[in-house]
């Protein structure tokens, strides 16, 4: 699955523009302020510890630096527009020299890297490089190991991310080790039969879905469920209420007619209106540390029992009825 571009005001598909208004070019006061804000965003995106983050996560961190909505009272629930166009962020990024600690290589989908096993992003572009050594462009390719027993055991959980760059970021930060959970991207579907066999060996095994708060994202869970009958599928979100509660920077796209899309029944009126206004929020708009902590907690945490007071809210669970932090 590829994510569509958003509106003109919104967030463009991540793409590094190297050399645009290159270093040494004349910068105005706004440019210098932006550079300073980017410095702060780099530090914040990688904290605490040494978190690896994507370019889009860095962009959204820059948005938070420039418009610190987290300081507003909690009662104000909204999804701000991006305070700076993505193009200007790219320009500021290209002006930086040296390695940006924590920045992952370009997303394979952007076409800037060779998409194949063994390809490496050296991160030595004119405008600074990447800190990781991610091989660029390698979809889930089970069976690389020479051991005969790799797929002989049970898998209690598996995570499918709508975005490959999110999947790569989670893997780069060891979520698969922390949660004992394979992490795939939507375009790795359908699931490899060996993974399905592993899930079948564990009672209650769950495929978790991490998606954007968007029409396409909300449809992913149903698509996965339809394509894998008999597999328990649960959405982690995002749904509009998450985006609103966390005040995520949201794109502004064209309005649409609700009946055109298949939306989960669990969405409330406010969420449907939010979507109908063309709003969408990406998983990468969540702060990297919060994303890692929350996803790990949700995929590892106890599932709501099938026979519980929450049983009637199954539709909500399908729509991402999970607890995300308020701010």
């Amino acid at each position: 699955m590829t994510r569509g571009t958003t509106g003109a005001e919104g967030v463009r598909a991540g793409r590094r523009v190297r050399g645009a208004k290159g270093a040494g070019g004349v910068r105005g006061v706004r440019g210098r302020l932006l550079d300073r804000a980017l410095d702060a965003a780099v530090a914040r995106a990688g904290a605490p510890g040494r978190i690896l983050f994507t370019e889009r996560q860095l962009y959204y961190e820059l948005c938070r630096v420039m418009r610190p909505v987290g300081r507003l009272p909690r009662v104000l629930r909204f999804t701000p527009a991006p305070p700076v166009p993505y193009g200007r962020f790219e320009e500021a990024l290209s002006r930086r020299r040296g390695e940006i600690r924590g920045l992952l290589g370009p997303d394979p989908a952007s076409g800037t890297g060779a998409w194949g096993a063994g390809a490496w992003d050296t991160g030595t572009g004119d405008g600074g490089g990447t800190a990781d050594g991610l091989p660029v462009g390698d979809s889930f390719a089970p069976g690389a190991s020479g051991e005969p027993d790799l797929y002989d055991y049970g898998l209690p959980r598996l995570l499918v991310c709508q975005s490959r760059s999110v999947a790569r970021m989670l893997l780069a930060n060891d979520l698969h080790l922390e949660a004992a959970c394979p992490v795939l991207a939507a375009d790795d579907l359908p699931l490899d039969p060996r993974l399905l066999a592993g899930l079948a060996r564990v009672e209650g095994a769950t495929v978790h879905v991490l998606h954007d708060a968007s029409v396409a994202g909300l449809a992913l869970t149903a698509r996965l469920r339809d394509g894998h009958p008999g597999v328990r599928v649960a959405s982690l979100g995002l749904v509009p209420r998450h985006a609103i509660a966390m005040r995520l920077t949201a794109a502004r796209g064209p309005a649409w007619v609700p009946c055109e899309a298949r939306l989960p029944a669990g969405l409330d009126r406010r969420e449907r209106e939010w979507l109908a206004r063309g709003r969408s929020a990406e998983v990468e708009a969540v702060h990297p540390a919060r994303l890692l902590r929350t996803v790990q907690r949700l995929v590892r945490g106890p599932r709501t029992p099938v026979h519980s007071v929450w049983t009637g809210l199954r539709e909500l669970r399908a729509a991402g009825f999970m607890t995300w932090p308020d701010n």
Partner: protein
Amino acid sequence: MRGRTERRAGEVTMARFCACLAAEPGRARDQLASMGLPVRDGAPALALIEDEPGYATGPFGAYGRTAVGEVPLHNRPVLFAALAAAGSPAPPDCPDGELLLRCWVRLGTAGILAAEGMFALAVREDDHLVLIRDQMGARTLFYARAGDCWAASTSLRALRRWPALGTGLDLAAVRSFLTFAYLPGEETLLRGVREVLPGRCLRLAADGSVKEEHYWEPAERLAADARDGEGRSGESYALRLRELLEEATAMRLPGAEAVGVLLSGGVDSSLVTALAAKLHSHPVHTYSISFGAELPNELGYSGLVAAHCGTRHRVLSVSGDAVAARLAEVAALLDSPVGDPLTVPNLMLAEAVAGDGLGVVLNGEGGDPVFGGPKNLPMLVNEMHRRQLPGGEAEDARETAYLRSYRKCFTDLPDLLTPGVLDALATAPAPQRFVTPYLRPAPRDGRMDHLLNQLLHCNLRTKGAHHILTKVERLTSSQSVQGRSPLFDRRVVDHAFATPPRWKLNGAVEKWVLKEAVRDLLPDTVVDRPKSGMRVPVQQWLGGPLRELAGDLLLGREARARGLFRQDTVRAWMRGEGALLPRQGGKLWLVLTLELWLRAYDIS
């Protein structure tokens, strides 16, 4: 089987041993004397280190050889029979140390391999000193060379006192400790001092050369049909395992006296309790720990098992204040630091066992590393993803992931160690080398083909030998008690690696074959419950009774002068900051443990 070295608590003077070898016998004796040890004129340079907690005896002799050792044996009849069959019967009252020496002299490594026990032996043979360590690593043995002389000892402190060695802190070992929470191989924190690895005989020559014989290593011995997913049923493996577990437990029971069992409530210690209760004709005492009723614990399960097996059960309450008061004492008892928050509680358990007049206490250690406990699935998942990960194509990618999966300080080292230390470590051998032989085995005899077995092998040879067993031995010995681990029995381990991996991790059921082997002995709720582990309130301790101690130790003048750790990182961790997941307590525990150990051994 009660061996001759078995004793009741406090019965016999405790000792470690030390042995020296030089081209000139007088020179070797001089080196022993320089360590403050007793020397006999004209005798080989072998000595006991009195007043250090251990089970050393000697020097003793057989067939013209002289030796010292710490040698509790569990299968004396087997060894008597083997010697008799070889035409060299041993006297029936032969002590364990001498019996093992006879096995070595008459049968070589086959005789050592036949011995089931916990032993370290130093044998003087002509111009050689032979160092022998048991198969699993239940006893520890160190050696070093200085001034044209070899010295070997079961006490690291003795080698620390050796003037000729002039040792200091080994920074690579500091990194290893922070990575693993123990030292996983031949390294010690003392520069120039190495540990004999388990299952090895080391022949040290007076000319300085070393020859190592690797007499036992677990091997994957799967039947041909088992490799194809066919073959014997899981139940048949469980039945055979049950026989071996009964034999392993029976041979570790003391003679005509009560026995203790450390009972956590997990399946491993519960099955040892059940087997002891079934097989022993004397009272079985069980001991559990409580850190306070407000914390998650397994006392309900341990109480259930104790009632089910009819044991005399005691629950020890361990307070943060007690831990704070005794942490330094425990650090001084360990030859190499162990960053395990259960060390003080383990010592208090040993004290309780000794206080009840028991000389032997069993434990359930070994079930996880041998039969596939938790923490293997993350590495299996990692292998599925390896080509997609940062550095995934690197030769040591699997080893690096393994170190990351430990969740200690490996990923924090760039922020934790000072620039000077990092510079000094730039050319030092990487800690991945300790797990490479198991996780990326070379094509050699005994190579394990299955990834799960490789992981278990790694766990057995690193954590099993260098953390679990050494901790048990040091802390129980300090109370004149013998801690014994039936699940580390060699034949049990051999059977585990002859069992198809799918019977160890069956779907998501960990240790399946072990659970099936004892299902009839224990309540289903104990056998089938998921492992929860003991929740140790490290963070709570560090924020309360240990707060002042940690601050003084880690931010004080001595720590600053040592220059190992960045103060800003330590301060951030003490504030509960600086880490993605709330593991600062565990990380600080490692740093605190190391600092206490360095002080106990007076290393600047």
